[in-house]
């Protein structure tokens, strides 16, 4: 109950943030703009609409996750509301979990609005609804949950600016972590290889959650890989949220 109350409160607070609406409106305008862009192309209209739509959801969703996620804890400290909360019979882990779930709920609503726009546009152009497109959006949402967990972790011990830099850097590194392993295999000695392998498993490999190509080109999706990717994201999110809880438990607010 306590976690749900904090989550709902975080959600209410987030939906009052004007930056959220600015990002959402911009994303919807970009989505609608893709229909104008396709008029200057020769062929491939549906592909372009799907590509741009999925990119919009991913990019603007990441912006929402980072901008709102980095302030989850630091805002409470800055406004001194945290001191009131931690004196109440609430465990610190409940506070962190509630904050995380509240932001995930906010993201869910935003992604749902953008996804409805994209699925509607794709339906208008293709005349059929695409399950693969829906699955690609679902995995983008999982990626956003992971990015939010990263932002929350940094927010638990760092300033908003540093948290934004760290989260954004890890978002980029997460899309390149596959290359890290390749690099080590090709060039490194034993120590480099071990370090690269360790880093590879610690960094989130966000390319595992990328099913955009399958959605856009209508390729068959391997259920096993998808299921494992889903589990991979869930384990990573759990580890990050638990790490944020552990840091927050030890933090001294005197």
């Amino acid at each position, binding site marked *: 109950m306590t976690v749900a109350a904090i989550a709902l409160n975080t959600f209410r607070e987030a939906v009052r943030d004007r930056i959220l609406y600015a990002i959402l409106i911009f994303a919807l305008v970009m989505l609608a703009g893709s229909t104008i862009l396709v008029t200057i192309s020769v062929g491939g209209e549906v592909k372009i609409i799907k*590509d741009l739509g999925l990119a919009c959801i991913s990019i603007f969703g990441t912006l929402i996750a980072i901008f709102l996620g980095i302030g989850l804890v630091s805002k409470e400290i800055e406004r001194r509301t945290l001191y009131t909360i931690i004196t109440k019979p609430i465990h610190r882990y409940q506070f962190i979990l509630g904050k995380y779930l509240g932001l995930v709920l906010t993201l869910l609503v935003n992604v749902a609005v953008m996804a409805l726009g994209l699925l509607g546009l794709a339906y208008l152009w293709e005349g059929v609804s695409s399950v693969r497109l829906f699955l690609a959006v679902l995995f983008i949402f999982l990626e956003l949950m992971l990015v939010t967990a990263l932002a929350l972790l940094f927010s638990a011990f760092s300033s908003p600016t540093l948290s934004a830099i760290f989260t954004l850097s890890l978002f980029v590194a997460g899309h390149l972590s596959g290359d890290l392993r390749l690099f080590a295999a090709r060039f490194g000695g034993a120590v480099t290889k071990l370090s690269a392998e360790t880093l590879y498993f610690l960094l989130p490999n966000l390319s595992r959650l990328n099913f955009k190509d399958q959605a856009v080109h209508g390729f068959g999706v391997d259920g096993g890989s998808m299921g494992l990717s889903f589990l991979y994201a869930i384990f990573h999110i759990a580890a990050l949220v638990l790490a944020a809880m552990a840091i927050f438990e030890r933090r001294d607010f005197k």
Partner: protein
Amino acid sequence: MKQDGLTIPGLLVASLVGLILVAALLDGRGAHATPGEERLFLPDAKYLKPMLIGFHGVAADLLWIRTVQYVGTHVETDRKFPQLAKALNLATSLDPHFLEPYRFGGLYLLYLARQPQAAVSLLEKGAAANPGRWELPHDLGRYYYLEAHDYARSREWWERAATLPGRPDYLPRFVARLYAETDHRETALELWSEIYRTAQNDSVRSLALQEIERLKAGSSEGPLGL
């Protein structure tokens, strides 16, 4: 305070007027530049793709749209396309399953840039990356039939396309004619009619119309003079 209130809107209007004037002056300078002078930024796909962190599909779309504009600009000006093959190669390396740059790009390379070898390489690259799609072996067969007049290779590609799902109904008929070595003019007419029917822009449509008229008039010379 009132004076300040009047000064700010005044300065704002002056800035906007200045902005429009400078923009018009810059555009004027651009208009005097050599036609088709603009260059497309085309880095190596091997290095570019990882940097796009999963957004390579969108990058391929935007590059394809930019390439179409590039072709349009040069068709209206100098009819030279020095960057076309590289742009198409990059777009198809970023998204190897995006069929339009292979298909329409192949036509542009063949009939506008007059680079048949580059067109064949592009289509072969597409056929290798998309073994389940009939469109690319079909277009290769069409090239060997209409332009290279290499009927053995044409039959080879069309036979391959005829086994793939979604292929046009006329393909088995064309293969049969190639085995019988008859009705070449009729086949060519059907092919160009199909291009005319499915053309998505005016340049391709007028090219097809020109070829249909030439074939009806009885000329055997193709657009490349082959």
